[in-house]
């Protein structure tokens, strides 16, 4: 069995069941083009009358959009009545296909899912071949809304009694995604509010700083944040009710009181236990085993360098200096005798735990040590070791041990403290939800102040006044470039080239080998600046090939569209979109007529130069 149905068989099957016209949604542009190629040798030829109708309709469209006149796909479309429609095509060609479909001349269109959102042309049937869609490099499952958007193209009002959505499998299809999509409720939509630099500048231009919080509060983002905050407030109210039995007792804030008391108690308890693990003889010795003390070990004698207790070690440990300057570790239990002799020892926090001088001196003194040294008499107390003073002190401070409500506190503490923690957490999140937009705004304000677009009093500076007119992506980078005078004296083609590399956000590869030295050095400057701005703004892709392509198009007015397309591997539609996006950016720069007349003039020249040929056809 083939992994997916052959396009020719698919169309044959649809025609047989009278399910045409149909839109066949395929995974990629390439899949659409390949599907079209399979018809090259298939003998699915339309009757002459219909071929003629397509030709007539196309001619009528050509009057408006001359660029499709010589389109290489025309003969095939005419012969089979099927076309491909995707972002790789020129807008005028897409318009032609849409028009043919609307007039009912086509039996099927192979399209990518972008069509579902972008264009309005219905058919009797849609064919779905995939359950995921490519979104910025990764494939993600179609959402319910997307599936319904796709299926929604099926069934033309007034032309069909019913519409059909037909699933045909291809590898990696997940049928459950599609059935869920067809039968489910579309997802709720969420605000994607972001605060951009031009937004801050424009808001501050029109409104005083203290009004901004009120304006931000009008956003759908804040509306949804408030919804969440209200939910939390409800929870908070519920918690409040639950907290009622745990109100003030003998002390007002008994939860904290008990918490500290309990902590102190536990703390004491734990200390007590570690001491207990050592025999009274050993613990009695510990205070004497200080650095510089001479001790007798199983074999020979040594001088204590440090006493420590490490995790996982049951016993207290000693680091001992042995004869021949050896440094060894041994448990306190290994000490046979504690002698009545100590030497001065300058301690250090790292190996060998004393200063080099001391170390040399101690090694010397150890060798000089007389054979008999008196043993230190150590009194062993067999009673319970008294608590360290600090703890006794603090436990004594607590009224709890004798308090009448002690049993109640002890019993309720776990629940009450959990409830109170939840309360505190909710209160904090509510506060964050209510103020987060404002904080994000303030962050942007600070950056703009740092760069000198805003005064410390949040007034627009001279630079801020014109910078607010640049309302596109990477606006900070563009305004910084203008301030750095990167474009001064640059001719329209260079300006267009750089703006194209900023505007283009597609990572589909294209190739253009030659790049002019002027453009490449300017791009290098832009890249350096973009990197330095990266903490404040995501750097653009800055593709050199698209910059070079646009530069050529602007610099060489004799270059035809076909000639331009031959220069690169990019699809026609992508080149068109690149130029259209560049136009958008240029038109923003063009608005700086008053402050930067030279630059604005250069931009408007570039606009005129870009707008020729295919780009002249559509507004």
């Amino acid at each position: 069995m083939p992994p997916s149905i052959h396009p020719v068989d698919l169309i044959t099957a649809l025609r047989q069941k009278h399910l045409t016209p149909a839109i066949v949604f395929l995974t990629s542009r390439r899949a659409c083009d390949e599907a079209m190629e399979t018809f090259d040798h298939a003998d699915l030829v339309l009757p002459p009358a219909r071929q003629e109708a397509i030709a007539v309709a196309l001619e009528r469209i050509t009057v408006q959009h001359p660029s499709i006149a010589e389109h290489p796909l025309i003969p095939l479309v005419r012969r089979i009545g099927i076309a491909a429609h995707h972002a790789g095509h020129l807008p005028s060609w897409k318009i032609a296909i849409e028009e043919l479909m609307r007039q009912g001349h086509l039996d099927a269109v192979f399209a990518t899912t972008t069509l579902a959102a972008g264009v309005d042309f219905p058919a009797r049937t849609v064919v779905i071949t995939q359950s995921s869609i490519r979104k910025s490099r990764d494939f993600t499952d179609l959402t319910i809304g997307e599936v319904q958007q796709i299926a929604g193209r099926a069934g033309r009002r007034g032309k069909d009694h019913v519409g059909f959505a037909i699933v045909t499998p291809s590898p990696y299809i997940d049928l459950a995604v599609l059935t869920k999509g067809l039968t489910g409720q579309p997802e709720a939509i969420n605000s994607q509010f972001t605060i951009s630099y031009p937004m801050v500048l424009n808001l501050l231009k029109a409104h005083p700083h203290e009004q901004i919080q009120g304006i931000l509060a009008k956003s759908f983002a804040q509306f949804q944040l408030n919804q969440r905050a209200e939910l939390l407030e409800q929870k908070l109210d519920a918690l409040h009710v639950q907290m009622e039995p745990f109100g003030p007792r003998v002390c007002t804030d008994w939860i904290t009181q008990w918490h500290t008391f309990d902590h102190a108690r536990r703390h004491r308890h734990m200390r007590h236990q570690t001491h207990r693990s050592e025999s009274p003889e050993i613990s009695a010795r510990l205070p004497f085993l200080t650095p510089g003390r001479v001790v007798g070990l199983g074999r020979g004698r040594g001088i204590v360098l440090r006493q420590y207790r490490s995790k996982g070690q049951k016993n207290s440990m000693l680091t001992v200096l042995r004869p021949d300057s050896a440094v060894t570790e041994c448990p306190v239990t290994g000490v046979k005798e504690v002698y009545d002799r100590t030497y001065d020892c300058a301690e250090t926090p790292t190996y060998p735990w004393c200063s080099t001088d001391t170390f040399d001196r101690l090694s010397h003194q150890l060798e000089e040590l007389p054979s008999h040294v008196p043993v230190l008499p150590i009194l062993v107390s067999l009673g319970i070791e008294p608590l360290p003073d600090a703890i006794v002190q603090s436990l004594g401070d607590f009224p709890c041990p004798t308090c009448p409500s002690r049993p109640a506190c002890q019993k309720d503490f776990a629940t009450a403290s959990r409830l109170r923690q939840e309360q505190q957490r909710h209160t904090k999140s509510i506060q964050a939800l209510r103020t987060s937009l404002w904080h994000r705004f303030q962050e942007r304000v600070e950056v703009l102040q740092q760069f000198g677009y805003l005064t410390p009093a949040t007034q627009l500076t001279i630079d801020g006044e014109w910078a607010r007119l640049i309302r596109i992506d990477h606006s900070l980078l563009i305004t910084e470039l203008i301030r750095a005078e990167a474009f001064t004296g640059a001719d329209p083609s260079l300006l267009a080239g750089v703006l194209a590399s900023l505007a283009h956000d597609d990572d589909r590869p294209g190739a253009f080998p030659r790049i002019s030295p002027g453009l490449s050095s300017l791009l290098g400057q832009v890249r350096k600046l973009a990197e330095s701005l990266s903490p404040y703004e995501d750097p653009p892709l800055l593709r050199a090939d698209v910059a070079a392509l646009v530069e050529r198009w602007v610099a060489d007015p004799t270059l035809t569209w076909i000639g331009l397309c031959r220069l690169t591997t990019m699809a026609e539609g992508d080149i068109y979109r690149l130029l259209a996006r560049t136009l958008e950016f240029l038109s923003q720069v063009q608005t700086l007529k008053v402050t930067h007349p030279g630059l604005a003039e250069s931009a408007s020249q570039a606009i005129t130069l870009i707008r020729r040929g295919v780009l002249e056809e559509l507004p």
Partner: protein
Amino acid sequence: MRDTAVSRFARVPPVSLFAMTTDELETLLAQQPVALLHRLARGRVHRHFRAGKRRLIELLLQHSSQNRAGLESDLQTLIGERHSQSESGSSSVHHLPAITPKKASPRGTEPESAETAISLSGWLEGLGVPSPQPFVPDSWQNEALSALNETDVVISVPTGSGKTYVAVEAARRAMEDNRTVIYTSPLKALSNTKYTEFSRIFGPDTVGILTGDRQENGQAPLLIMTTEILRNLLYDAASGEIDVRLDTLGLVILDESQYLADPERGVVWEETIIFCPSQARLLLLSASIGNPQDIADWLTSIRSTVCRLVRHSKRTVPLRAGYLHPNGKLTPLFRTLGIPYGHPTHLHPETKRLFLEYEEETLPSGRPRR
């Protein structure tokens, strides 16, 4: 006795069957053997095997209120099948079902599919072009238009329900009052399509289009632009560089408003709505979304009037889902004729079988994904 036998086995033409009254259906059900009723009840009535014949008929009738056509067509299939079986059965001495070769009929190999699920022919029925009828606006369209006289309106309806009609009528009414109308779409391509379409409807002089670097007919009362352009206009107006036309602005139509949730551009819709002049009505057109009420509530909270939500989920042209196997076999995707909303697992048994087969053959590990 003879009469009942005839009516029980008679091949009733589908048209008369589909037009049965409840009483007729009940009588017909009562005439069927209980085994057939159990087969009919499979997938329809929960724990049907515990119910007696009377109760079973009752439950089936109760269920038939949701999908009468499906029940009747299945009943018809079952009766037909029984009829053909009893014919072949009568020729043999035993009352065992006749042994038919596996490939004899596609229906026979998959008895399950015939029981509760819709057949392909039933699924394809009704396909065709309706006779031309004068255009009558749907009730929701009228509702939206009359609401727009007083308030802002949010419309959330399935794709292809006729949102454009509302936009066109609303624009026409606003222009009759000498008010400016702005229509925005998320994409330049859509703007161009709408420009052509509206020029055709209102005449080329009445419609203008604005892009970043170009204006065509910029003084026309109906202006088409992308949402970004409108946002920029509103910012310029807010900072004092007033475009005089905004004073006469009567209606702003935001098409494809579900773009509000677009990760990169959604913010533009919010800015546009926040800064939209209060004297202009807002008309938000959106595909089906999960929370249109939220959008309406939001508009109510920031605008001077109470926003009206118009929503429905019923498609104007009903939709059916099918499954086309790579070998060219077409089956309905779901057991029911229409889309079983809320029941994604109600797959057609034949489709289920074919798809499992497909997964086993194509997945490298030979193990289904879920």
